[in-house]
Structures are given as structure tokens and as C-alpha cells.
């Protein structure tokens, strides 16, 4: 019994995780969350820390309930979602385009790719003042900044994916005299699907971070703006509540994107 189970695990491990392991992970996950929740509540009630810094879980729960009934919350959510969506669309398109240029052209990659590498890890928020000057304080400057951050991630993973294409597949296409258009659509694109989609998924993460961050700096709408507003009122339960909501929404967004692109975490 045990031996046959092990063989199954060994041969199928690549495709499907064994059930018992998934169950174990879930138990550990729930346990950790419970421990944190109980410690938090204990700390809150102990009176050891300032009550407002560690509010009771029940007050946070109540604040979440209240936030979810506010029309303003949905208006801000919509603004932020729209910003992230456009950032992702613009940043990914440009990123794929530039990534293909860098990946396919030895001269281009020699001349420019190291700049992309240098710029990629710089915090995008430092470009925010520039974006405000170019695009104003409205959502356009957040979209531009989000697109910029998404662009680097997608461009680098596309360029990498382009170079890792099995060269013989390109020779196959050429031997069948595929046109450049056919080479692009039927060989390069499908061959790069996985790295490009992974790049887009990572790009979603960076775009989300950047848009929210930019909203907290200077804006008059969006979830980041709402967080700062609540913070300025020192309404700690609502602040924690909103953070939890943002966390969950971003998680759901990532999950949906993962499903759509067929790349799982």
C-alpha cells in the first residue's frame, strides 16, 4: 500500500500534488493564522500597548463591515482597479514589444539591455514627481507610473524568453519557409507564452504596488487615497480593515490573472 502510494507520488508529482500534502499545508496555514489572531487579540486586551495601535479583531471586523457598505469605498476601488488595468495593458504591450526587440536583436540587446537591468530595480516612485508634471495629479500620472513599472518586468522576461527558445524550432519554421509574420505568430509567440505570461503576472504585482503607493502620495481618489484619509483620522480599526480588504482584492486579482493566463502560482 505505502509503496504503491509512493510510486504514484514519484511519477505524478510533476502534474498533481498528492492530497495528503495539500491537506497538511492547509492545516499548518490555518494554525498559523489562528495563532496570530489569538496573539493579536490577547495583546489588544492586555493593555500592554496603546489601544489604538492594536485594536481588537472585533472592531476591525465591524470596520470592514462598515467599509463594505460605503459607496465611497466602491468608487475608490473602481478608480484603483481601472488604474491597475490600464497600467498593465499599456506596460505589458510596450514591454512585450521592447522585449522582442531586445531578445531578437543582438545589437539592440548589447546596446540597451543593461540599461533596462539597471533601471528595473530602482523604485518607480522616484519618477512620480516627473509623472505629475507630465500627466497631472489625476489618475493619468498613476497609470503612467504603473505602466512604467510593469513595463520593465514584462520586457525583461520577454527578452529572456525570446533567447531561450529552442533554436531548432526556429530552423523548422525556416525550413518550411514561414513568413516573418508566421514565424512570429506561430513559433516565437507560442514558444514564449510561459515566460511572457509570467512576466505579465509579476507586472500585475508591481503595477498594483506602484499605483497604490502613488495614490498614497498625491491624489484625490483611489484606495491608496482612502487609506491615507483614514490614517489622517487615526481610525485604526478602519485602517486595518481597509488594508485587509486591499490585500484580499489584490490576491483575488492575482488569482484571476493566474486562471486567465493558465499559469498557477
Amino acid at each position, binding site marked *: 500500500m505505502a509503496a504503491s502510494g509512493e510510486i504514484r507520488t514519484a511519477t505524478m508529482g510533476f502534474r498533481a500534488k498528492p492530497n495528503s500534502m495539500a491537506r497538511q499545508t492547509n492545516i499548518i496555514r490555518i494554525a498559523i493564522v489562528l495563532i496570530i489572531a489569538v496573539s493579536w487579540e490577547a495583546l489588544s486586551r492586555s493593555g500592554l500597548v496603546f489601544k489604538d495601535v492594536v485594536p481588537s479583531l472585533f472592531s476591525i471586523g465591524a470596520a470592514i463591515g462598515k467599509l463594505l457598505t460605503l459607496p465611497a469605498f466602491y468608487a475608490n476601488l473602481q478608480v484603483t482597479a481601472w488604474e491597475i488595468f490600464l497600467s498593465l495593458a499599456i506596460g505589458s504591450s510596450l514591454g512585450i514589444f521592447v522585449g522582442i526587440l531586445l531578445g531578437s536583436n543582438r545589437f539592440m540587446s548589447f546596446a540597451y539591455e543593461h540599461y533596462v537591468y539597471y533601471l528595473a530595480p530602482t523604485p518607480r516612485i522616484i519618477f512620480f514627481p516627473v509623472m505629475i508634471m507630465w500627466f497631472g495629479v489625476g489618475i493619468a500620472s498613476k497609470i503612467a507610473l504603473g505602466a512604467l513599472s510593469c513595463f520593465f518586468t514584462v520586457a525583461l522576461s520577454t527578452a529572456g524568453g525570446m533567447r531561450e527558445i529552442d533554436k531548432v524550432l526556429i530552423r*523548422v519554421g525556416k525550413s518550411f519557409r514561414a513568413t516573418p509574420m508566421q514565424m512570429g505568430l506561430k513559433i516565437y509567440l507560442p*514558444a514564449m507564452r510561459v515566460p511572457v505570461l509570467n512576466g505579465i503576472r509579476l507586472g500585475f504585482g508591481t503595477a498594483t504596488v506602484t499605483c497604490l503607493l502613488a495614490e498614497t502620495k498625491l491624489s484625490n481618489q483611489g484606495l491608496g487615497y482612502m487609506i491615507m484619509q483614514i490614517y489622517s483620522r487615526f481610525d485604526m480599526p478602519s485602517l486595518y480593515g481597509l488594508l485587509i480588504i486591499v490585500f484580499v482584492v489584490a490576491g483575488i486579482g492575482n488569482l484571476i490573472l493566474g486562471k486567465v493566463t493558465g499559469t498557477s502560482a
Partner: protein
Amino acid sequence: MTEASSAATVASATQPQLVIDNVFKQFGEGPGAVIAVDNVSFDVKPGEFVSVIGPSGCGKSTLFNIIGGLLDEYSGNVMIERERIAGPHKAVGMVFQEESTFPWRSVMDNVAFPLELQGVAKSERLDRAAHFIDLVGLKGFEKRMPFELSGGMRQRVSIARTLVSGPQILLMDEPFAALDEQTRLLLGDKITQIQQELHQTTLLITHNLTEAVQLSDRIVVMTYRPGKVKRVVNIDLPRPRTSDVVSSDAFGHYVAEIWADLREEASRGMQDSENMQRGRARRG
């Protein structure tokens, strides 16, 4: 026997379809340079089956890529129908030595690929692809993805994919290397059958002597580094030929004769790599 030799005289009267004329290719410059193909010349007549045989590393794949128009920067000429090729020629279909199925396409879609490029209508595409899938013995696997197949099965997908495009000149680089002996013989029969039916000109690159003698009208034996033509052997075994020919006396005769040449070259190749290893060990 007489039938075969009369066929051979008819063939020799016709113009060659593929001419390889003084092809020379060197990789790198200076002391590290490797001459992969050294002034190789031979030609292939319409409908003829020619094999190029030689030890590993002698430049066969390089020659294959040059003939397929995938490698420029060589000297000499490759002529098809008396014209020097510039890039992949429309009469040529290639089967590569490496794993070359598209991992994101099913068996059916892999095989239908060349037809898709030509803009053949979907239903016709599927019909024609299905025919060649059946021919290479993969009926029932149409919907499978390459990763679900064995290496030998994937290689048969590549062969079917090239055959479906109906090339006048078929170039194959060790297409049977990943197959077991039985499948190799049977698939060899299939290839011979199509080749004879369609009167398809075929150039097979191989380092398998049995395979070469079984299938060919002529065998070009290459030397190990630099890759030169050592000898050209005509194989006057009767056609139609099946894998049964393998047990005939004449077959054994050809194998023994070519093996003598080949052994010399192969052992030079082995020595070369042993020396290289020893040199590396001394340095390291």
C-alpha cells in the same frame, strides 16, 4: 538484379536534381578553427536515395544545414535544378536530428503545421495530416501532446510533419536515431515505400550502416575531421526492397565493405576525443 541495374542506368542518364559542389565550411578562425566540411562534392539524381554516412562529429549536420539553406557563409555551391540555392528551397523538406516537435501543438497540429503555413483549408489539412500520422504508425495519438509521447514517437511526428508538405527532395538528419531496431526497420520500409511511390529524391544522413545499406541507392562515406568524401558506394540491391534484404548475402557484403572504411574513420574520431580528454586531464 537486372531490373535494378537497368533502373540505375536510366537514372544516370538524367540530370542530377541536387548538386553539392566543393562545399567547404569552417567554424571559427585561427588555431581554434574547426573545418567541419572540407570540399565535399556529390550529386543526387531525381528519385534517387542517397545516404551520407560518417562518424559522429564529422560534419554531417553542418552539411545538412547548408543543403537546407539554413546556414550561409560557406564556400562552394549547392544547386537544386541547376540553380544555386539562396536560403531554404521550396522543393526541400527537412527532418532534423534534434527533438523538433512543437511542444504546444498536439500531434495532429504538429503534422498539419506546414499545410497551415500554406493556407490549406482546415478539413483538407486534417485529412492529409491524418494520412501521414497513420503512415508513421501513430494512429490514435492525434490528440496527444508531444510530452505524452516517447522520444521515438516524437521523432515520427517530425517525419510525418515533413512528409505532409510533399517535398520533392527529402533531407533527413539521423531521423531514426531515437528509434529501437524493429521500429527503425519498419519505418525504413515505410519511407522506402513512399519514396518509391512518389519518386521522391532523398538524402539521408546517418551513422547507422545497416540503415544506410537497407535504404540507399548510393552511399557517400565521409572521413572524420576534416569531413571529406572518402568513398561513394553504389548499392545494387534489387527494388522494391524491404527490411528482409538485411538477411541477404549481398547485403552482408556491402556492410562488410563499407564498415572497413568506416571503422578506420570512427577509430580516428575516438582517438581524437581520447587525446583531447587526456590533454584536458594533464592541463587540469
